[in-house]
């Protein structure tokens, strides 16, 4: 039997991974980051006219918001990738087979939020991350609810019923 070359590549694997500092997974960070993207897009829109007419302070605000929007969208991608890559295992994927597709759509939508200024992209990003949060809590048999966040942009977000 070939234990050294190609034969090894086809072997199934068993995890003996270590768990420090794992175990703390929560999609709430990704949801807040996605909300932040929408809020930043709103602030940019509010300052667009003034910045266009030469208001330096407004231009400064837009520059800062653009920078922060980049960071928050990246944070969404990072947080979702961690849960998808580290928490989800074969049993979760079997139970929720559309997770790969959902995560991929989040990646693309977050990138679209970086590239552009369309609020609709931000709204769709929040919704996709909400769906991801529902999937995540479903793997733990935790019920969820949709509530409106009590701060701008006042959008519907998923919370676990703990």
């Amino acid at each position, binding site marked *: *039997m070939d*234990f*050294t070359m190609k*034969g*090894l590549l*086809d*072997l*199934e*694997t*068993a*995890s*003996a*991974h*270590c*768990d*420090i500092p*794992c*175990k703390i997974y929560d999609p709430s960070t990704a949801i807040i980051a996605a909300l932040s993207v929408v809020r930043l897009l709103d602030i940019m829109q509010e300052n667009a006219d003034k910045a266009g007419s030469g208001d330096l302070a407004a231009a400064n605000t837009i520059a800062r918001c653009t920078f922060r929007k980049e960071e928050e969208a990246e944070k969404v991608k990072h947080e979702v990738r961690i849960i998808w890559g580290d928490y989800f*295992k*074969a*049993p*979760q994927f079997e139970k929720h087979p559309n997770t790969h597709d959902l995560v991929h759509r989040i990646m693309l939508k977050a990138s679209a939020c970086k590239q552009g200024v369309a609020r609709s992209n931000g709204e769709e990003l929040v919704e996709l991350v909400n769906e991801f949060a529902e999937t995540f809590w479903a793997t733990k048999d935790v019920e969820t609810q949709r509530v409106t966040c009590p701060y701008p942009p006042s959008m519907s977000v998923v919370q676990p019923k703990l």
Partner: protein
Amino acid sequence: MLKLLKRCGVRVVRIQGDSMAPALLSGDVGVFIQYRSRFLRPKRGHVALIDHPRLGMIVKRVTGFRENNEVDVRGDASTSTPAIDLGPLPANRVWGRLLLRLNGQPKHSGSPAT
């Protein structure tokens, strides 16, 4: 070939991670034999291949037994997932026992694997 072995109650599995160090190191290949007769059942101290309901396929050491046909397992290394998070597990989740460890470290050219 591997499917045929599995049907015969033998699985050849590559180990990922060091929670079973030093008994098994990441990159090692383990040969496991299935628990499927009254003569071959999980015993305390066995390194076992486990189909974990949450973590998927894992390798841990059997540390004890409970009522209701449940088995306690844990990793050897101090950094392993705490035993309390791993189980107890239904006995039918404990697939088989480590029979042979093949070192995953590369050998010099031409040396047959042992």
